[in-house]
């Protein structure tokens, strides 16, 4: 890493670019440097502030009063810049406007609401794993398992039409790139934005959605007046933006973790109920969502320094999740650890509305795999997929040994 750290006002400063390809390829050295530099660091390249320690990140995430999301959770400041799409009613909204959409979505995606999906998803995972294993035990896990499974269960659960589902991953990929600076990754997605956004808008309409599913439940809430009919399609859109790429990368993270930690796979085999802990440990360890911004609502004091009103602050969720001040041996993927309290799903009023969906998907897939697979190992070099916000894999070649 070529970043130079300096300090003129006592506030450490760094000229590193967190969205540089080399950093996206391996963010850990920059994360460590920012954590060590202090509770808060100024990033001179973008004139933004950064937090990389657990205590500060956690405290700022829960403090919606001083660190708002309504001015955007990317680098772009909605106080001065026009967003690339109508802002999210959840992710990019503050109370009071955040209240009603949040209440509706958390109830649609609550653990109780997901109970009726549980058996079906577990059966679906078994079918997928059987199909995959009967075709061979050496394959690239990203297309075959970690993308295939969410794409098999989630669009159905939302109630999306079959046609156009291949647009989901590219749309999400662009949306998560767009939280970063206007770099080559954003430029790469730009040509398809209009087309993808058009498809997404078309399937968020009531007529396009199946009569049962998360989408229909959101529209039903608008019938009861809990949200307005204008809000309903944008809340469905939140599912499509935030609910696909994230779980694909979360599942990739947990499979990669097991492939590189064979002892942990044995533990899971012995005790399949560890599947839930395993997924959250992987979300902590890999942090599929690496960063989100906040904006200071006033001059906010952080330690000895002041973040001026309207400034952007970059929260390094991934760095917080490996802060040795909070976690023992943070770089190890370890099922005996209690990963509770990690900020991989965020924390506070914006904490991931889909976390129970993600956990259920992973529990289903891991349980199905643990039933049949004795060991997992890498079968070749892996490749990262670069994204300004997500930490993800393009390819994870695996070799499985079945019983």
């Amino acid at each position, binding site marked *: 890493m070529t970043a130079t750290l300096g300090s003129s006002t006592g506030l450490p400063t760094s000229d590193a670019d967190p969205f540089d390809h080399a950093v996206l390829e391996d963010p850990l050295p920059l994360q460590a440097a920012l954590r060590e530099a202090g509770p808060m660091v100024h990033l001179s390249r973008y004139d933004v502030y950064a937090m990389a320690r657990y205590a500060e990140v956690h405290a700022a995430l829960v403090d919606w009063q001083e660190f708002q999301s309504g001015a955007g959770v990317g680098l772009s400041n909605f106080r001065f810049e026009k967003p690339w799409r109508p802002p999210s009613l959840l992710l990019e909204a503050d109370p*009071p406007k955040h209240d009603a959409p949040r209440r509706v979505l958390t109830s649609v995606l609550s653990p109780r609401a997901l109970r009726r999906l549980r058996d079906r998803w577990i059966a679906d995972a078994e079918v997928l794993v059987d199909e995959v294993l009967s075709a061979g035990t050496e394959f690239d896990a990203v297309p075959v398992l970690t993308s295939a499974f969410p794409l098999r269960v989630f669009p159905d659960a939302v109630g999306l039409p079959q046609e156009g589902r291949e647009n989901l991953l590219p749309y999400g990929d662009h949306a998560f790139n767009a939280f970063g600076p206007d770099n080559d990754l954003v430029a790469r997605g730009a040509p398809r934005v209009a087309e993808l956004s058009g498809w997404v808008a078309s399937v968020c309409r009531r007529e396009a959605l199946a009569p049962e599913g998360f989408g229909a439940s959101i529209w039903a809430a608008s019938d009861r007046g809990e949200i307005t009919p204008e809000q309903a399609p944008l809340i469905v859109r939140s599912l499509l933006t935030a609910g696909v790429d994230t779980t694909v990368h979360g599942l990739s993270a947990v499979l990669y973790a097991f492939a590189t930690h064979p002892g942990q796979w044995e533990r899971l085999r012995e005790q399949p109920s560890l599947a839930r802990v395993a997924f959250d440990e992987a979300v902590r360890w890999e942090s599929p969502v690496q960063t989100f911004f906040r904006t200071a609502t006033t001059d906010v004091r952080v330690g000895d320094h002041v973040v001026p009103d309207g400034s952007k602050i970059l929260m390094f969720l991934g760095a917080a999740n490996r802060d040795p001040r909070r976690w023992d041996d943070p770089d190890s993927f370890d099922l005996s650890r209690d990963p509770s*309290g990690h900020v991989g799903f965020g924390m506070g009023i914006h904490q991931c509305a889909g976390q129970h969906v993600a956990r259920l998907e992973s529990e289903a897939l891991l349980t199905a795999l643990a039933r049949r697979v004795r060991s997992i190992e890498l079968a070749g070099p892996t490749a990262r997929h670069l994204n300004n916000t997500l930490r993800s894999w393009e390819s994870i070649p695996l070799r499985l040994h079945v019983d």
Partner: protein
Amino acid sequence: MLGSRIDDDRGTATAGGHRKVPATPDVAELRVVRKTPVADGVLTLELAAPSGGRLRDWTPGAHVDLALPNGLTRQYSLCGDRWDPFTYRVGVLREPVGRGGSAFVHDELAVGDVVGVGGPRNNFPLVPSDSYLFVAGGIGITPLLPMVHQAELLGADWRLLYGGRRRASMAFLDDLAAYGDRVLVRPEEEFGLLDLAGFLGDPRPGVRLYSCGPAPLLAAMETVTAGWPRYALRTERFLAEERGAPVRTTPFEVELARTGVTVTVPPGVSVLDAVGEAGVEVLSSCRQGICGTCECGVLAGDPDHRDSLLDDEERAAGDTMYICVSRSRSDRLVLDL
């Protein structure tokens, strides 16, 4: 502000051993920091975390369950400022016929005392609209106070009709004076019964009606609004009922049915921590009864729900609980763990 809180951040306190377990924030208790008479027979309590930390977030219409030192649990609507994360405010009417909850608050509860808390929960949320009509009867003003503030903030068109027996017994008139003629104060002694039909006018689509107060007022609202669209009217009964068994201050036992282990949970220790100490790892996240991660099936026993997630019906079903905050009313709970 943030910095000073980070210095004593309890969430990062480290315990020994392999796991650095954050200290459970004292979300189960609140300290009375101010007690203020605001009208004849009405006082407000301001409550804060004993540690001085942030309280759980809430939205207008929400209430908390307060477990009073005399063993009674009462529900109170929050009527403070949600932008102040450190303080809750509730209004308490001295009820002549109550079973001792309100009398205890008025006569015994003192600044510095500690009460148990559950929630906040919201059965009476403010739904989005450009136009609201609010009708309050007596102490039913409390949940509506933050609602009118929010309606004002959002630039909605709104009006409040506020009835009570006598002007001197009607709370928050000073706060409401700031809204000018959006607020109609109509004490019965001066104006007679509330003219609901006149205030509401003809049914209009999109207008949301909110009412809180004694049962006769709510019944009258139902009748008067019969011609309004479905879901236009939202009401909350005066939160007066007192719940069954008193909250326990003694240890209880939790049997983990699948593991075959029984643990004792002393006061001040969460079920989550007690179970974890027995070697049964239950995933958690917020540790405040908000996120739903630590949900556990309940096979037997009577949970003391303290979360912000379950509604009354789900609580009554008694088949699930959030063990980061919820406890037990019975001597023994059997969990599906």
